[in-house]
């Protein structure tokens, strides 16, 4: 990028934070925690800069291409990570959270940077659709990380393992709270994201929802699971506690992986990844159909026949 900030900058910062977290399994010098926070904050600054530059130079950023969408989700996780490190300074939360962030960045690197060629829709509703699904994904990922830590902590307590000075985890009570809230938040956020997508689609010229589209189908499945799991949790008191919530969030993660895998396919209504070298004519066609681009830039690039384009 022109600004000199590229993906390597924040990836390296987060990788350093992860390396410091892993090094904490063997040695914990006093400066380590400060260095972790410094690396994470540096990563967030570079990450924000990168997303900001993309939003400024590309009419379809920051959420309209799979590349930007994954990076925005990773950015949200990074922003959550820093207060967690400060609130739970002695725990090794980063060992679980940072790999998820880096995985998202890795997926973003390989994902298409072209706009998602969905359907003509007002920019606002397109943004609502994208933002809520992204936040729902973040909530599911947080629940997954908390669920994994819960199961490990619970196993160690059941097996009466002595307190580890290096791989410390938050208390079961705290993890359960994060788990529960993540599940509830994920159900609401994904539901809002899903239904705004449906309503926006119904409001377009075509006026129908492609229910058999793999992304729509898998997202419906994930939403059904999240709503069902949340309803089960609210109705059945035993499911509000302990390992059951952890299992529910882990299952939510499986649904998420499946949905993201379909999202990466290019034969869906959301288009998807064709690698980094997409042809320029495809780009301009995508921009023409872009739902999230600023209205002015969309109108400027739209040919007269675009009014009738699907």
């Amino acid at each position, binding site marked *: 990028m022109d600004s000199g900030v590229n993906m390597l900058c924040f990836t390296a910062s987060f990788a350093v934070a992860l390396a410091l977290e892993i090094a904490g399994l063997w040695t914990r010098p006093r400066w380590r925690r400060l260095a972790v926070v410094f690396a994470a904050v540096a990563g967030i600054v570079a990450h924000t800069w990168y997303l900001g530059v993309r939003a400024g130079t590309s009419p379809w950023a920051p959420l309209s291409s799979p590349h930007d969408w994954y990076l925005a989700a990773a950015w949200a996780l990074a922003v959550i990570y820093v207060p967690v490190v400060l609130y739970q300074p002695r725990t090794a939360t980063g060992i679980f959270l940072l790999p998820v962030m880096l995985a998202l960045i890795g997926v973003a690197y390989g994902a298409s940077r072209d706009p998602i060629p969905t359907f003509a829709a007002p920019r606002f509703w397109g943004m609502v659709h994208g933002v809520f699904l992204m936040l729902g994904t973040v909530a599911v990922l947080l629940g997954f990380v908390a669920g994994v830590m819960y199961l490990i902590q619970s196993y160690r307590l059941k097996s009466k393992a002595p307190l580890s000075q290096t791989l410390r985890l938050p*208390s079961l009570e705290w993890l359960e709270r994060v788990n529960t809230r993540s599940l509830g938040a994920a159900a609401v956020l994904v539901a809002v994201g899903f239904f705004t997508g449906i309503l926006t689609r119904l409001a377009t010229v075509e006026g129908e929802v492609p229910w058999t589209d793999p992304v729509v189908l898998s997202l419906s499945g994930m939403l059904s699971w999240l709503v069902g799991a949340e309803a089960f949790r609210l109705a059945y008191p035993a499911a509000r506690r302990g390992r059951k919530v952890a299992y529910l969030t882990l299952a939510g993660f499986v649904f998420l992986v499946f949905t993201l895998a379909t999202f990466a396919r290019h034969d869906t209504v959301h288009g998807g990844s064709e690698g980094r070298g997409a042809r320029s004519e495809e780009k301009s066609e995508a921009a023409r159909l872009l739902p999230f681009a600023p209205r002015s830039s969309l109108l400027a690039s739209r040919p007269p026949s675009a009014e009738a384009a699907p």
Partner: protein
Amino acid sequence: MNLRMVGCTHRATGVDVRQQLAFGENQVGDALDRWRERFPQAELVLLSTCNRVELYAGGPSESACPASDDLVDALLGYHRVPAERVAGQVMTLAQREAVAHLYRVAASLDSMVVGEPQILAQVKQAYQRAAELGSAGPVMHELFQSALRAARRVHHETELHKHRVSIPSVAIADFASRVFERFDDKHVLVLGAGKMADETLRYLRDAGARRIFVVNRSEERARQLAASCGGKAVPWSDLWRQLVAADLVVSTTAADQPVVTAAAFDEHVAPHRQQRPLFILDLAVPRDFEPAIGERLSVYLYSLDDLAAACELNRQSRVRELPAAERIVLAETDAFIADAHRRAAAPVITGLRRNLEEPKLAELERLFKKLPDLDERAKSEITQFADRLVNKLLHPPLESLRDASLEGPPQGLLDALKRLFRLED
């Protein structure tokens, strides 16, 4: 500086002798007053805990510090314990050994439970008491401040204190705190009213526990324990309801059969808890809770054996930290002794400087009278020249003194300097 320590510790002295020599809170002041009358020039600090009775004495010169035998006599005399009664059990240390011993005591390296934190506060308290009573002066101030510094270094630079070794502290800090984020909103149930329950409740109170309920077959004992920890006594018949409501259970009954069987737990407790986490500390021997209860969902059951195993691992972890702690004590002892030696040389250095300063000033005055036409700038230059000359003349002997102080009291060198420069007066 002269330092001595006499006393007894858990390492060499039986508990019966230690009890005879121990000083109660009210006796410390009285004993120090009496000993000050007997040794008016000495500075004294008395450290008396469950595991040790130690009397530290010091003074700026050898004559000011009492002999070890006199100190032992004073210590035994206060309690009228005959010397034969403690033969071979009283320790006497002087100078470097006394310093190193105090450092090891303050850093909890000499404690019965190595790394226990209370001893540092006890050492600090002993010094403060002596200072308030006027029996501790600059010598004891230097010694005890440096001991506290050494202990703090051991605390911060090693992991000696990070591994808890008492059953209640391990139970609460290493296990319960991994289940619960906070304790102030938790329902704590105490079964039985044994000593271990009392100690565990102290840790729980420190951790913030406020909702404490005590169930005991003897309601009187339950009320006593509840009153001591700000809890509430409930009748034994309420046991199942209490177990349903509890988050954390501390059990220390003297029952010879399990108080809570797995079958009873499944029938009276589990169905009503909705798998809410339950942390059970079964500190009773024999056990109050059947081990099978620990296999139930969201139940974390710890027996004395489980906790003892964790304590033993922590103890081994502490042992691994000992060499690093001993190195710190050694370095701090070396630094203190070198400082003390340097301080011993201070009067000689002052005398040496004075011996050169006085002739310098006299010669400058004579010169300025002989040369009345000198302007201020020339006078200033000449004065600076004289200062530099004196400093250069002093530098080699002072350096030699400093170097010699690192290895021991530079008595020979000091005597030579005194004679060479006629510093006796």
